[in-house]
């Protein structure tokens, strides 16, 4: 006996794929394939079910992650672009500006540096921040024995 599966369940597979694998070179064709529909039919059905086009859904997921990476990492804009599955820094910058109203660089500049929000604990700062022992040469100096 075949169990009836509502059509939206197939569309949800495509939506989940966009959310989970946005960092790969996914496009609407891949999402349509995941839903088992032709591209044109898929785009219409996706918009009807979720209120936006699959292209827009995938892009906004990428923009959301790119914004987070700009706030929380010190990676370059190009690296952020590639990290969210996009290949062209120019297109990325345009999409980002359309989404957030500012360029990625300006967006980052409006927030404190990522290092300021990194929860590097004091014990680590003490370990890694102390000068290298041999840089002081104190043990070699006569006063070290005093």
């Amino acid at each position: 006996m075949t169990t009836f599966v509502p059509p939206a369940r197939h569309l949800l597979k495509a939506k989940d794929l966009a959310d989970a694998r946005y960092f790969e070179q996914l496009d609407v064709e891949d999402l349509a394939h995941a839903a088992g529909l032709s591209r044109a039919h898929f785009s219409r059905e996706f918009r009807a079910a979720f209120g936006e086009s699959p292209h827009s859904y995938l892009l906004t997921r990428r923009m959301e992650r790119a914004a987070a990476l700009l706030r929380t990492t010190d990676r370059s804009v190009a690296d952020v672009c590639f990290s969210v599955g996009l290949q062209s820094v120019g297109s990325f910058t345009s999409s980002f500006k359309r989404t957030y109203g500012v360029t990625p660089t300006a967006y980052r500049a409006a927030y404190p540096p990522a290092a300021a929000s990194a929860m590097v604990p004091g014990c680590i700062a003490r370990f890694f921040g102390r000068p290298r022992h041999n840089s002081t040469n104190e043990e070699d100096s006569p006063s070290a024995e005093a």
Partner: protein
Amino acid sequence: MMRIANAQVWVHNQDEALAFYTDKLGMEVRSDVTLPEMGDFRWLTVGPPGQEDFGIVLMAIPGAPVMDEQTGAEVRNLMSKGFAGTVFLTTDNVQGDYEELKGRGVEFTDDPEERPYGVDCGFRDPSGNSFRLTQVNEAVVNQR
């Protein structure tokens, strides 16, 4: 009230670990900063989408003078033997996740099996750290 913010695992190589935790496990980068004032120490954390307030710190094993050579070797040895600790994950679809992760080349140490508390499987990260992935049987847990 205390909450767990981050927990640390040692990794042999941060870039390799980052690729594994994001590309294969599907986690997101929470923080990735390199601090020149701390000898280019890299604070790198990842976490599961939807659980924004918890991160796993992917910590490189430091060299001397932060960690002496012998201690570093001991840590590496423990990791390679699988005794450096375990991260316990839960999921609502253990069989589906198992198949998906296996398809991405994740090295499983235990296939899904019924346990008193649910269905459980286990895998390792590239550094040898142990992970359990469990679909908890809510009915059993709620009896407590």
